[in-house]
């Protein structure tokens, strides 16, 4: 699909000329990237009579529209959902704010647009590729616990005690889910075991011993920021 930008240049650092007037668009299905400058977010842009007419034409031709802005959801989450639901998911408002072309959000969007370029009109748009990937919650949780124990050794014991008060089932789930996320990031179960975590159902579900904490913290951080 042909990609057209409406005032989104500053956000994405694109070099192609932008359209200042939507009516300049050719009568072919295209994918619009719209920064609704001067409107009250995506919703205000959508309600503008002239813009709405062109939006409808675009959607009827099999195109789609991505709104982005310095504000999450280019306005409000409720309006973003409404636009998406009322238009068969052919309109999407970016969940995260985008501050400028140097941001990681912009990098990801440019990758997403490469995927869109290959799509045909009316093909489903993989909007999740435009949004931040889901992050490894269990690994982050475990990292914060271990980092706190490493940084404040005098508090490590009370953190361990707090951990020990949790149900065995809860502790096992957190550790096994964290291991899954660890492996999803290209690291091995063998390495996991060397960090002092257990995987054996018959062993107590405990955190790594004090002497292994620095190594475990370092390994999890490498996994999170690699």
């Amino acid at each position, binding site marked *: 699909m042909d990609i057209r930008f409406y005032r989104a240049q500053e956000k994405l650092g694109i070099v192609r000329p932008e359209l200042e007037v939507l009516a300049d668009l050719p009568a072919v299905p295209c994918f619009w990237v719209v920064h609704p400058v001067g409107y009250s977010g995506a919703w205000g842009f959508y309600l503008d009579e002239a813009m709405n007419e062109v939006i409808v034409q675009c959607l009827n031709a099999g195109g789609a529209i991505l709104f982005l*802005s310095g504000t999450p959801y280019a306005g409000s989450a409720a309006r973003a959902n409404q636009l998406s639901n009322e238009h068969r998911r052919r309109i999407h408002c970016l969940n995260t704010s985008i501050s400028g072309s140097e941001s*990681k959000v912009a990098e990801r969007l440019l990758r997403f647009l490469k995927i869109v370029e290959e799509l045909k009109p009316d093909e489903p748009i993989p909007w999740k590729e435009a949004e931040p990937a889901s992050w490894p919650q269990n690994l982050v*949780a475990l990292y*914060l616990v271990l980092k*706190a124990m490493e940084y404040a050794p005098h508090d490590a014991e009370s*953190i361990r005690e707090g951990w020990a008060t*949790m149900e065995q089932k*809860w502790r096992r789930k957190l550790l096994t889910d964290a291991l899954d996320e660890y492996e999803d990031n290209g690291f091995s179960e063998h390495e996991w075991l060397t960090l002092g975590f257990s995987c054996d159902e018959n062993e107590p579900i405990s955190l790594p011993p004090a002497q292994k904490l620095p190594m475990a913290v370092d390994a999890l951080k490498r996994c999170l920021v690699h």
Partner: protein
Amino acid sequence: MCFIPSRAADLYAPFEHTWLKGRLLAQLQENGDRWVVSEDLPIVIKALPTRIQHFRLLLVKISEALSPTDLIERLPISSLPIEAKTKIREAVDSAFLELQIAQPPIAGIEEKLNRLDFVSKQIGTSWSDRTSREASLDKLRAAAQELRDAFLALPSEIIFP
């Protein structure tokens, strides 16, 4: 790289994006010439001190939103006993502050906010002097733009210590 968006943008966007960029800077651009010859202080400038004061209260929250401690209640460890959670929060926050990543841009925002506050108060008191209005509006535009740039220097993701 694990990218976890921080809530900081949610907190400052209404001020930085909607108000500073969308209203103050846009109106200075569009109406600046008209304002120079008007005896009434423009409403958007009159509202500045209140906006700035309101925003100052948010700065601490913005700094907190960049720290991984902001995630604790959204993670499985939110169900840990309060005492353990407090210890984790305090230690992780200290390690985060030691990085000195969030403080410089926050200090930059504070400095530019003070500048904008000073310039807007100056305009308020000198508006009756028609000869200085154009220069004052230029100063206001520059101060507002510098504040916007300071916002854009903030990291958009959670930073791990």
